[in-house]
């Protein structure tokens, strides 16, 4: 790309894909403002082209706004903003209600509780979505939880049925899980466990317990 005119320039002289460090700029057409390759991180040092890279001829530039196939691209407004756009798009296989909820939580500002609550962390939204996608794909029966923020900026997921409740609360590196159940005589019994975010088996087991597929609390 030419820094002054904003037009794409083929410096290889071959009319093909750009190569080397120059390519680092061209694989991300939404970036703004333009920054010379020397002031950008080196992307894929060996510049292997990715098969889905948009072809050169689809790019044009009108009034410094990059267009693809005639449609202007939105400016890139940061990773957390992009995450919000992802959830708005609804392409994750979650219900529109859940996606809407995620978007609402991502918009929370510091002090949203009227006190000193932290804003909802974007990475926590991603952890929550990863968990829900994993549970949804692993379990034959799965209901989405009620999702709430905690004052520390993490997520709390809650499921309730007549006999049991299940809560997942995010911490810096794990899910803190609390299950409760009403026994035959009416007494309430609580179970608690901290489970790594990557421990799929235990996370699934906790939901199976809530759903009645496991009689005993499965996490030791």
């Amino acid at each position: 790309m030419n820094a002054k005119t904003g037009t794409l320039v083929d410096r290889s002289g071959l009319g093909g894909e750009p190569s080397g460090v120059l390519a680092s700029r061209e694989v991300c057409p939404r970036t703004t403002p333009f920054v010379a390759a020397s002031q950008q991180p080196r992307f894929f040092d060996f510049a292997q082209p990715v098969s889905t890279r948009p072809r050169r001829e689809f790019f044009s530039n009108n009034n410094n706004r990059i267009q693809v196939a005639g449609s202007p691209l939105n400016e890139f407004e940061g990773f957390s903003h992009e995450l919000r756009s992802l959830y708005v798009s609804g392409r994750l296989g979650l219900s529109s209600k859940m996606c809407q909820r995620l978007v609402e939580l991502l918009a929370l500002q510091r002090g949203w509780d009227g006190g000193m609550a932290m804003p909802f962390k974007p990475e926590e939204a991603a952890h929550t979505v990863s968990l829900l996608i994993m549970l949804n794909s692993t379990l034959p029966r799965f209901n989405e939880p009620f999702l709430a923020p905690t004052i520390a900026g993490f997520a709390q997921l809650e499921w309730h049925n007549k006999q049991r409740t299940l809560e997942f609360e995010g911490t810096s590196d794990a899910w803190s899980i609390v299950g409760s159940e009403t026994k035959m005589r009416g007494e309430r019994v609580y179970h608690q466990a901290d489970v790594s975010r990557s421990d799929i088996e235990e996370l699934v087991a906790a939901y199976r317990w809530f759903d009645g597929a496991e009689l005993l609390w499965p996490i030791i």
Partner: protein
Amino acid sequence: MINATTKQYSVSLTNWFAEAVPYREAGLEGIAKKLLRKFSGYGLRPLEIFQRAGDRLFDYDLTFSLFNRNSTFRLTAEGSHAAFQNALGDKDAGVITDCLLGFLDSLSERRTRESNLEAFVHASLGSAEERDRFLRTLGATDRKISVAGLVLYSPADETFQEARFLVDRSLALPDGVFLNWAARFSEPLTQEVLTKAVSSFKRLSDEIGLEFVSPQAS
């Protein structure tokens, strides 16, 4: 001290493994599955992870990107590389940290020999005059040709080897400076290492008379 406001930043991490891993021992399917689970919340889908088998010896790679290709990840026989560009604000720093740690966690079976962490920052100093005045203070003022940049080398500490810190005019911001911090280290990347990297960056900025302030305070 001159107040600086970060307008845009990028981060990259390169890891070199202790030993090159041949294709047959690479376990790319398992890694791809882990990556998919870990990054599905960031929008990663199965068909967005690419394997290039190469010659099926050491010439292979596994790549994927997130955030409309503003972050890219690459695993090869000899190491891994992750880069994030055009980040804005503290919230993006949390996302970058999470993605970096998540990426390396998926490669935890490989032993890392050394890593190189690098940050690229475009910071506004308020006006072009202020920027030029600041850059001139970085060198001797009695020279006929004025100084417009600087490279500092910070001594090694318990975590990082010698850190390189470059100051230059920003090509992105007419009133800004471009700062590049880079250092190698051999311990595994953790949240603590990243925190130390930010401290080192701030200390070196401090050395040259730049104080980073939040956009509201500037």
